[in-house]
């Protein structure tokens, strides 16, 4: 079920985000909205809900007088010249779970909109505050754009500031500058790597993520008791792979919930672990060989 205006406003208050609230009759266009709040200092927004050929969705939220050229945007996203078009009306309800005429960045708070990519007009940054619908056409709230940004990031959404009027050339030597804003399944990978770096899974396992061979004997006395020869846990290809798989498992469970995560992971473990271990052994052997070669070709120490 989509969030209601009240629930959203409650969330904002809970996060101590300052906003002003204005009630008015239902409005379906920016012009109509301007009649009620246009006199207040701040940036009125126009919000476009867009779709590309691969059924990925975007919200472009711009100052009402920023010119937005869909053709240019489409190229900058790497979707080709005619890749972007207005999303069908049903999608507004289905994906954003807001009424027609109510497209707003706040719609991203809904689960159904988790893969929608939001582009915010850079121009918002210079405004004292900006106006958006809080999931309903009969209200407008104004808040600082940074607070909106912070709020949406806290829900794990992709948000970026874009100079919407820019028209950089896109070609062989100039890759599309907004390509990173295209939602995909892999969009969660950047999140994953951030999360795993911060992850403290199990206190009994070594916490460091990088394989640099710097086996810090300082890394907590508790490990030594539990694992005995911890000093060599990176010399053991099997332990290394088990550690890596453990991290994947935790991430998997986070994404898919306990049961499904476990089942999906068990399959992965069964199919992959032996291959990964063989690779790790070969890697270790190669490293040893390089060291050995270097050592045996060292010129004798000068006395």
């Amino acid at each position, binding site marked *: 079920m989509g969030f209601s205006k009240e629930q959203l406003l409650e969330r904002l208050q809970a996060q101590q985000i300052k906003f002003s609230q204005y009630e008015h009759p239902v409005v379906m266009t920016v012009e109509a909205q301007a009649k009620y709040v246009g006199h207040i200092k701040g940036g009125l927004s126009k919000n476009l809900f867009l779709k590309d050929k691969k059924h990925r969705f975007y919200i472009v939220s711009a100052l009402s007088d920023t010119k937005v050229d869909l053709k240019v945007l489409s190229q900058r996203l790497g979707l080709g010249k005619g890749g972007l078009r207005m999303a069908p009306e049903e999608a507004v309800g289905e994906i954003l779970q807001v009424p027609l005429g109510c497209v707003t960045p706040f719609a991203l708070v809904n689960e159904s909109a988790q893969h929608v990519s939001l582009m915010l007009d850079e121009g918002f940054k210079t405004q004292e505050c900006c106006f958006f619908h809080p999931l309903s056409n009969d209200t407008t709230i104004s808040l600082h754009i940074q607070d909106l940004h912070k709020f949406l990031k806290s829900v794990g959404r992709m948000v970026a500031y874009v100079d919407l009027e820019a028209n950089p050339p896109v070609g062989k030597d100039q890759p599309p500058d907004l390509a990173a804003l295209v939602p995909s399944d892999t969009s969660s990978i950047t999140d994953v790597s951030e999360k795993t770096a911060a992850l403290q899974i199990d206190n009994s396992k070594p916490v460091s993520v990088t394989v640099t061979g710097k086996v810090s004997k300082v890394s907590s006395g508790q490990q030594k008791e539990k694992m005995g020869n911890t000093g060599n846990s990176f010399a*053991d290809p099997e332990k290394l792979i088990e550690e890596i798989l453990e991290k994947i498992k935790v991430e998997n469970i986070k994404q898919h919930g306990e049961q499904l995560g476990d089942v999906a992971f068990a399959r992965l473990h069964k199919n992959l672990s032996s291959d990964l271990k063989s690779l790790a052994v070969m890697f270790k052997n190669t490293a040893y060989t390089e060291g050995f070669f270097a050592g045996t070709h060292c010129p004798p120490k000068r006395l």
Partner: protein
Amino acid sequence: MEHENENETKALQEQEQVVNPWEVSSKGKIDYDKLIDKFGCQRLDQSFVDRVFRLTSRTPHIFLRRNVFFAHRDFNEILDAYERGEKFYLYTGRGPSSEALHLGHLVPFMFTKYLQEAFKVPLVIQLTDDEKCMWKNLTVEESKRLARENAKDIIACGFDLSRTFIFSDFDYVGGAFYENMVKVAKCVTYNKVVGIFGFTGEDHIGKISFPPVQAVPSFPSSFPHLFKGNDKLRCLIPCAIDQDPYFRMTRDVAPRLGYNKPALIESLFFPALQGETGKMSASDANSAIYVTDSQKEIKNKVNRYAFSGGQDSIEKHRQLGANLEVDIPFKYLSFFLEDDEELEHIRKEYGSGRMLTGEIKKKLIEVLTEIVEKHRAARAKVTDEMVDAFMAVRPLPNMFN
């Protein structure tokens, strides 16, 4: 208690099957029970497999579960000692007679790799280039070259460089190793060695003096750079059962030299594609799947040459089912298909006739192709420098970790 049976080889030759390090053949199927009897080793039963599982906390290797390694000498003592915290080392080897290795050659190495990982123990691998030079009449250069080439395939099986020492006889024999060879040679009379190995007056003296070379890696003092001062370290030798004569001799000699008898864990022979009457031979390309075979070649070999236990016609097959005793695809799957449940399913379906020969061959091709490709990928990662590192006479400080 095992006996020193001087007439044993003669008796063996009079019977239907011949099993010694240089010849394995039989009129019908190899009778392994008779072999165990004649050689005097022990059967490896399920209780051992369970015990290994408990001691190593990991699934026992497929070759243990499927009774491919089926016989032993003193394996229980190795396990007893291990439980007490006493380590051991592994010793296995290869006679580099040809460049082409087939899956049968890899069997002891795959198993040894598992043992190394499961028990976390060091390993010495002997390449008997001198033996092949003598028996196969190769030049010294050629046998040394083959040894290095074979070493690459062995390394590709996944041994841990920080606890493995590979050596070729031409390179390594000398020093403490040679001292042990002389000590062993002094304990074995000419008559005895003729009795064990079947040498005749026509054989050259190189052959007759070779057995100590294969015996002494069982003694830790042969490797002073590895096991200095650890003279009582036990040795476990995974090998195919045709190597048993060497180690019968070694076990006889060991107590006289004040060493522990090496323990053995022995495998049966990987049957040739054409059937159970012998072992795979490097000289008949179609008797075996080689690690260099392409996917197409594997498919062709299995479809054309794998001996089928299926019936002559589909009707008969549906009625009677397949003869699993002689069916080669099923035998091979029992060696290489990891999933116990899946194998059981195939046993039921094929044995009852519901599954046809074409299907089981298809499954086998899949399994074999995966193994061969994996091996090839690993082999591609083995460099000459890596071989040098494996073969360098160097200490292994972390070999028991």
